[in-house]
């Protein structure tokens, strides 16, 4: 017991977690579970939202130590807003991911938090970036992260196909989260999803303005195993 909870006594609440992001033509889906735990034996929050909107069309999901992750995303949000004002245009997803990477790498000794940054920008369209704990940045069509992700590597490898539609991606994301939450004791609660797309279907906005909608899937309605 002592061995397991030492880290969290030092770091506080941790996000044993499952996070993922999937790219489809026209947008990205980013998702996470909603459990925050201390030492693997106490659930400190059942409904925490690990999806942080760092800009209009860019979301980040957090894993690792909650305090570190929140501090980094707060700093990144500020730097991104400043950068966007300087450039006088919406920031690139790559810019957001690079800011997170800089913070993670420069302070890698003190911090322990990993992220998935996903969003849409005018230059490259939908993108998914994974920023790992040590500060590695890599762009992939889909990525999974957090402690619960080890259980769904096989499922994700088997089920992901390039060129899926938005509905297929949504099903893939919800199923993957549900399976990981079913096996990982520090992931659970509800599945939060954010769908960031080029245009929204049911909102009265300009067609070329990217919109994001948030969906929350309750725990008892997830995919049956």
């Amino acid at each position, binding site marked *: 017991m002592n061995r397991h909870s030492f880290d969290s006594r030092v770091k506080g609440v941790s996000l044993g977690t499952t996070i993922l992001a999937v790219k489809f033509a026209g947008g990205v889906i980013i998702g996470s579970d909603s459990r925050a735990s201390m030492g693997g034996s106490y659930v400190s929050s059942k409904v925490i939202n690990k999806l942080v909107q760092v800009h209009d069309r860019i979301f980040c999901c957090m894993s690792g130590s909650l305090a570190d992750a929140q501090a980094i995303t707060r700093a990144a949000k500020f730097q991104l807003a400043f950068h966007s004002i300087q450039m006088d245009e919406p920031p690139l997803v790559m810019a957001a991911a690079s800011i997170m990477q800089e913070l993670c790498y420069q302070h890698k000794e003190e911090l322990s938090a990993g992220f998935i940054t996903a969003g849409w920008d005018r230059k490259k369209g939908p993108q998914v970036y994974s920023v790992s704990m040590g500060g590695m940045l890599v762009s*992939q*069509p*889909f*990525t999974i992260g957090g402690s619960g992700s*080890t*259980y*769904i*590597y*096989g*499922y*994700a*490898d*088997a*089920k*992901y*196909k*390039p060129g899926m539609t938005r509905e297929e991606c949504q099903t893939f994301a919800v*199923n*993957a989260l549900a*399976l*990981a939450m*079913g*096996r990982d004791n520090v992931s659970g609660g509800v599945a939060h999803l954010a769908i960031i797309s080029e245009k929204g279907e049911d909102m009265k906005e300009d067609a070329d303005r990217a919109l994001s909608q948030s969906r929350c899937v309750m725990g008892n309605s997830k*995919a049956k*195993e």
Partner: protein
Amino acid sequence: MNKLSPLHDKIYCALSGSAADAQTIAEIVNYQLDVHSIEVDEDPLVCSAATLVKNISYKYKEELSAHLIVAGWDRRAGGQVYATLNGLLTRQPFAVGGSGSFYIYGFVDAEYRSDMTRQECQEFVVNSLSLAMSRDGSSGGVAYVVTIDSEGVEEKCILGNQLPTFYDPDI
């Protein structure tokens, strides 16, 4: 290395963990089952084999670090799968174990159905092994598959380049 070890004609076990520990347990249980089947004058039950494995695992749980999955066919209960991790004995519809098993928990939870045919079951096993081998650094090489039913035992070895491949986002 072939990690499938016969305990009796229609009972096999899959080894994981320390190779030496696992092989030794399998040999001891093989011997004990032979003696037992002579005593009762018929083929042993899968449950008996699994119980023997469990007894050794539990008695020496501090010294040993091996996990055996025992599976086979007998006349009384048909096909059965038993997991004997750390000295517990539980009968399950399917079982996974070893370092590579963590990566496929999600996949097997999603894909297993209780009414699969023999062919579908073999595909399920080979797909699961292939996914785990592609992610786990300690798993790899070839896949050994043994199918046991009322008629007999079929052993297959599937080479690395014949295993099913899946989409890899890192390529």
